[in-house]
């Protein structure tokens, strides 16, 4: 079937069978490989994207059902300028192998957008994203540091 997806500000038209997941459509059809397939069952979070501004597991979402704009990790940074959450992940060493990182970052962006800062609440919010390298404490530090930077920027504006 013919579908149109708005991805990172661009509208893409493609012909997919109804059973194709958003994750496979992004990776295999559109060459957007930031979202990763770690389980294909909605259990690891490596495929996390935003749909209409909310986090979604792209491996559990059929491409043909998506109507709202999609943002992937590739859509966060502009003109070589990293998103504050991306910069915080690099600075806090909140990654090792990096395979879960695109999904972690999309969840972290949602956490900071919701103003979540309490360490226990950050841990809870981020618990849908597995990290086998176990960078968890650094991920908490990155979310909190990016959040406080975003709040500072907002206050300045």
């Amino acid at each position, binding site marked *: 079937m013919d579908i149109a997806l708005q991805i990172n500000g661009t509208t893409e038209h493609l012909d997919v069978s109804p059973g194709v997941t958003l994750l496979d459509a992004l990776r295999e059809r559109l060459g957007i490989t*930031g979202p990763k397939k770690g389980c294909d069952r909605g259990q690891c979070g490596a495929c996390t994207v935003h749909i209409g501004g909310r986090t979604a597991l792209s491996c559990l979402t059929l491409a043909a059902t998506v109507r709202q704009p999609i943002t992937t990790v590739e859509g966060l940074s502009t003109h070589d300028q990293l998103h504050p959450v991306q910069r915080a992940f690099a600075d806090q060493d909140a990654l090792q192998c990096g395979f879960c990182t695109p999904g972690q970052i999309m969840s972290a962006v949602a956490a900071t957008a919701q103003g979540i800062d309490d360490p226990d609440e950050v841990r809870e919010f981020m618990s*849908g994203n597995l990290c086998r390298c176990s960078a968890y404490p650094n991920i908490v530090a990155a979310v909190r540091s990016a959040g406080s930077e975003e709040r500072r920027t907002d206050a300045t504006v």
Partner: protein
Amino acid sequence: MTARPDAPLKVTGSATYALDNLVDRAAHGFLLLSTVAHGEVASMDVDAVRSAPGVLGVYTPFEPLALHPVTSPLLGPMWLPLQDTNVTHHGQPIGFVVAETFEQARDAAGLAAVTYEERQAATSFADGLASAVDAQPAASEAPPSLSVLADGVASIEDALDASDVTIDATYETAPQNHAAMEPHSAVAVWADGELTVYTGNQASHLVAADLAGALGLPADAVQVRNPVVGGAFGGKATSMPAVLAAAAARELGRPVKAALTREQVFTATANRPATVQRIALGARRDGTLAAVRHDSWSSATPDLGFIEPTSHGTSREWYRTENLAISQKAVPLNIPPATFMRAPGEGPGSFALESAIDELAVALAMDPIALRTRNNSTAPPGEDLQWSSKHLDECFEVGAARFGWERRSPDGRVEGDWLVGMGTATAMFPGLRFPATVGVTLHADDTATVAASGADPGTGLLGVLGIVGAESLDLDRDRITPLLGDSRLPPGGLSGGSTATASAGSATMVAAGTVIEQLLALATAPDGPFHGREVGYADGSVHALDDTDRAPMTFGEVLRSTGRDSLGATGTTAPGEEMAKHSFGSWGAQFCEVRVHRLTREIRVSRLLGVFDAGRIINPQAARSQLMGGMIWGVSAALHEGIEFGADGRVTNRDLADYLLPVNADIPDVDVRFVEHPDTLLSDLGARGLGEIGLVGMAAAVANAVHNATGVRVRRIPIRLEDLLED
């Protein structure tokens, strides 16, 4: 600058893992697995598969992909899929379906009709213990059983009988899966008779050699690329999907992708074995160890391929004792293959040994740290070679002060509804090196590259190469480009055995020294800019030592003035005579605080501290991260993960919902400290590895804390709530 040169790629989604390589006309492969644990594939009706939409190729034991036998220098004979009809375990690859799309391949694979001639399968480790066989522990040249006895002592039993205080207990550890976030996968592309394969692995040159062997190609016709790897932990030393993808791509005349599903990873790769360990310790009243007996059993495949070396990996070396006896047996089963997993031997072995030491401390009414300090070894028992640099006492001293160990009571404490306990354990991992070659190249634009074939699967080796390269070339780090993950680069930096930093780091130093010598020779050659001068190298420049008025020239200027774009050299290091002079190991003190709910028995880890003696620390931020990750692996082994087998040999928890890993909410802040004593007896770099030691001892520290909190000694991991329920 961030701790990891590849962090900017990883946070923007632009790091290219194996399956992120976009290749025109790539077909998709899907594996078909056995549904019995033991027997033969009697028939496979694949007509429906072959005629399904989009299917390009169907390979089975009856119509296999042609492969040649391969023996890996590291792991021995490699199992090659679809070469015969034997089934040795449930979930073994028995077919490979290639189609235009992933969905078509997956759907078509489901149409295969397979029949088996089933044979009786041995699947219970517990049932097999009685008929266990002596087995060679992995990564060891020692015999399965060995003993060291004091003069006049006839047997370990006599030494135990003569001890003032003894404990004797049996411990069990669960089989585990590496569960790297990136499932095993590959993309294979042929062009003009040469093969390029993108596949996550631990050493691209070794995987390239495996592929060349399996496909009957000259070594230089295969290139393997893995610039980033989505986790390995010992589970990606070989790449079975790469073999299938490459062979199918050759048959079909187009690129092929092959990826295991998460469920397939649990049975189509290899796992950490289950272990049972019986430990008897005998001590004098003052805590001096007089006898250590450690008997180990490991689950294994029928060919006894990999045996988890729990007693050889721990009790053989850790404590001073006059009498020691260890043994290793295996229980052959029809279960998925076993292989190295992070801290092989030391991980599960330390759960048993360090729990037993804690039990002995209780029996002696002695502080567990004091007991460990009293029995600190200066060399492995019965051996002359002293530890090159061992500061375990300092680790415990620093750790006890930092953790507030003096507040620990022998019976824990109660805070509201929570029973709170503290536990500790020793961590140790051998200080090893592997042979390594690294290339250092100076470029005319005054930058340099440091390159090796090995891998950085999250370990931080890329940053280490950058730092050591910058230091050795006396350059700023932003002028160094470290490169890893291409089999055409010099063969070094294999990710395994916690060896990469010491091995590739010291080879980088040698290569840098050589390229500087070559630069100076070039500068003073008859047509060089410093002909007839005495020269030296500093700060990225050549200086005339005998004419200080003469302006120095950067190496780029020297290269340009001699008409060169670049100048490169390789450096090679390998274990040498130091191995005949000392014993080498990293050491650490692990601390854990747990809270157990008085009613529900929920177990929460509330504080973790590890203090490590790992020689020189090259990249402190990444080193801390790696140790933190290791410590969380220890918590996971203690409280979360374990493969469960059904009676039919099926893995019953083969996904990430049922195979429990810690999530962020399970993990508190983790404190990591170093006592930094460079070990220049191991290599000029002074660093030992720290990839594995982080998890060693931690599971015991958790269990010891649970005992301190509740009075319940749990000798089987993972610990479950029900282990703490009162009858």
